[in-house]
């Protein structure tokens, strides 16, 4: 049975406080340091804690308690912050990934692919009313939410696109039919325009899939 946290009461100069108070102070420090958006100096920490508390011994106690954990409490200069234990940095390495927002055109293109799949590039452009830059589709392919599905049985045999399992997972849908239709978008307040007659049942979720030759099954 491993000792998860080794609590050492290294500092004996805090004995005047009741164990409950000390415990509360430690919890407070923990929460403050955890939520902080930058390392905090002892003075800053003191200003957030009840008055007359000696911060240093508490910090040292926390530092010791976390020394053997996956996350350590570390001073840098005179400021303190929780940091991943150095030996576990490998877990984060590939993680220094940037978070990117999808551009508006990409989002729109993704939506059209989702609603109208299998859909060709020309059809996407028809709905969007503008030509789709190469980069937009590339970005969508990179997200893993869009994949080439097959080729339309029409002149030129254009490539068709559709969404992936990851798309459904990311957007919390169990199937593509769960996307709200136009009338439902309107009912939900997302679509303010009047839906012209004949469009109520739209979108039809794709041209007849039979008009398409599937590519070799992708992974997933």
């Amino acid at each position: 049975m491993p000792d998860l946290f080794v609590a050492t009461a290294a500092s004996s100069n805090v004995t005047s406080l009741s164990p409950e108070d000390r415990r509360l102070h430690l919890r407070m420090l923990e929460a403050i340091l955890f939520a902080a958006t930058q390392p905090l100096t002892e003075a800053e920490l003191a200003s957030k804690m009840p008055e007359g508390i000696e911060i240093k011994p508490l910090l040292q106690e926390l530092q010791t308690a976390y020394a053997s954990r996956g996350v350590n409490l570390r001073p840098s200069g005179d400021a303190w912050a929780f940091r991943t234990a150095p030996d576990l940095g490998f877990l984060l390495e590939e993680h220094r990934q940037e978070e990117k927002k999808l551009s508006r055109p990409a989002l729109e293109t993704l939506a059209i692919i989702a609603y109208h799949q299998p859909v060709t590039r020309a059809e996407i452009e028809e709905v969007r009313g503008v030509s789709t830059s190469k980069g937009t589709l590339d970005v969508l392919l990179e997200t893993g939410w869009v994949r080439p599905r097959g080729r339309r049985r029409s002149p030129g045999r254009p490539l068709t696109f559709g969404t992936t399992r990851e798309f459904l997972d990311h957007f919390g849908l169990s199937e593509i039919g769960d996307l709200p239709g136009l009338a439902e978008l309107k009912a939900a307040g997302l679509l303010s325009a009047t839906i012209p007659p004949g469009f109520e049942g739209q979108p039809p979720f794709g041209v007849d899939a039979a008009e398409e030759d599937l590519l070799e099954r992708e992974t997933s």
Partner: protein
Amino acid sequence: MNGKRDFFEEELAPRPGDEDILLIDIDGFEGPLDLLLALARHQKVDLTKISVLALAEQYLTFIDKARSLHLQVAADYLVMAAWLAYLKSRLLLPDPEPLEEPSGEELAARLAFRLTRLQAMREAAEKLTERERLGHDVFARGMPEGVALGQATAWQAGLYDLLAAYAARRARHFASTIQMKKRTVIPLAEARERLMRLIGPSSSWAPIDHFLSEYLVRPELRATARASALSASLELVREGELELMQAASFAPLYVRRKPKEDARA
């Protein structure tokens, strides 16, 4: 805890009190059921034991009062009033024999159920707001190093963004369709020009519809064509260009070019 309810626009609790309930206007309520619930809560009993008969009477009194004060009463309130009046009669007059439809008691129980259920959801909503909420009472790590799963880039996009993008794009598409509808209005100038051209120099009487036949075959143009033609013809009469004649109300309207004074001689 302080500020726990900050994220509502208004407190849930305040509802009109007993004394003023008959004085306030109906706009404070979100529909007949909301109003009924407010009235029911004034009976101050378990909603499951509420007197639906008394409630129906209170509601009817309320609506009568509002109408006597010349307050606008929306249609759905009146529909509910009619239904409650019916329910009242069903409750007061015992059913002579079992009918196909539900008995008065069954209808009353159903109403009591709906009120209880709505009340339960209101209380549930309130309990939700009393919880310790993320970003308000409970906080995430301020400096997360970030964990990526598999991919080099974490793409951010929510379902709402996706749906909103799609709706906006389609709406733009529809907007152009709607603009075509605008053309279904016949402007006054067009009607005037048309009347003058078609009537020509002829000074014999002809039904005004005769000059509009091209428009009148299209149902969506009928009203606007008639309205514009009538306005235009009145204008032309005032200017001394045309004459109008009608035998009786709603009879066909005849029009001709006003004969020139000198032509009579």
